[in-house]
C-alpha cells in the first residue's frame, strides 16, 4: 500500500467512524415503541409490557418484548440475520428480516402510537 492509499482509506474510515459515533452521541434515549412493518402493514407496540408474539403474515417469526427491549426471537429465514441482531432498546435502532419482508424499528415518545392495529398472536 502506498501512502496515498493509506490516506484515502483513512479518510473513509474517519468519515464512517464520525457518522457512527455522532449517531450514538445524539440518540441515546430509550425507545418507547417498537414499530413492526410486514407484508400486512405497520403496527406499533409499547415496550413497557413484556410479550412474546407472532405476526399474522408469518407465524414463524416470533418477537419478544422484555424489560423495554425487543428482539426477533425466532425466524424461519435461512440466514437468521434478524435473530443475530439481538435485543434493541434505543431510539433509531433497527433489525431486518429481508427474506420475510419484515422490519423492526425502535421509536421514541413522539411516535404515532396508534398505527394500524394488526391481529397478533400471543405465544
Amino acid at each position, binding site marked *: *500500500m*502506498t501512502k*496515498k*492509499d493509506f490516506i*484515502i*482509506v483513512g479518510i*473513509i*474510515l474517519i*468519515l*464512517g*467512524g464520525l*457518522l*457512527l459515533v455522532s*449517531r450514538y452521541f445524539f440518540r441515546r434515549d430509550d425507545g418507547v415503541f417498537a414499530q413492526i*412493518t410486514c407484508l400486512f402493514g405497520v403496527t406499533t407496540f409499547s415496550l413497557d409490557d413484556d410479550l412474546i408474539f407472532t405476526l399474522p403474515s408469518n407465524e414463524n417469526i416470533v418477537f419478544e418484548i422484555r424489560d423495554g427491549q425487543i428482539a426477533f426471537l425466532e425466524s424461519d429465514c*435461512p*440466514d*437468521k*440475520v434478524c435473530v*443475530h*441482531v439481538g435485543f434493541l432498546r434505543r431510539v*433509531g*435502532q*433497527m433489525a*431486518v428480516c*429481508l*427474506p420475510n*419482508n419484515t*422490519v423492526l*424499528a425502535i421509536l421514541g415518545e413522539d411516535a404515532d402510537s396508534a398505527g394500524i392495529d394488526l391481529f397478533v398472536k400471543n405465544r
Partner: protein
Amino acid sequence: MVDVKKITFMGMMLAMVFVLLLIERAMPALPMLPPQFSKIGLANVIVMYVFFFVGKKDAFVMVGLKALFGFLLRGPVAGLLSFSGGVFSVIIMLVLFFMFRQRISYVIYSVAGAIGFNVGQLVVACIFLWDFRLFVFYFPVLIITGAVFGTVTGMFLKIIIPAFNRINGG
C-alpha cells in the same frame, strides 16, 4: 468467432469464485460484527481480476453468474442482493476507471468496489422493503466494513495478479 481460450479462462475463474464463496461461508463470523457485515468478499477478487485483465463486460457476466450461484444456493433474496451489489460495485469501478485509469491503485479500486457492493445491496434492500430509514441506519457500518474489507481484498488481488497472469497470458 468463439474465443475458446477466453471461455475456458472465464470458466476457471467462475470455479474459483465458487470455491472462494464456499470457503467464505465456512469461515466463522467475525466477533463484534453482525454476520451480514462480516463477509470479506474474497470472491470479488476474481471479479476485479476479470475487470482489469479480461474485460469490463466480462466482469458484469461474472457478477451475474456469481449471483446465479447465490440464488441457487441461498435463495432468491440472497441472489438479488448479490446481483445488485455486484453490478453496482462494477459500475463504481468502471466510473473510477474512466476518471483515473492507472493513477489510482488496485487497493483504492477494491475499496470503492467493496463500498459500492455494500451500498448497492443496501439500496436494493431499502427498495425491496420500501423503508429508507434502513439506509441511514446501516450506511456508516457499510462504509467502514467496505473500507476495511476492500483493503484486504485489494491486497489479495495484488498477490494473485502475477499468478493469474501466467495462466491467462500463457
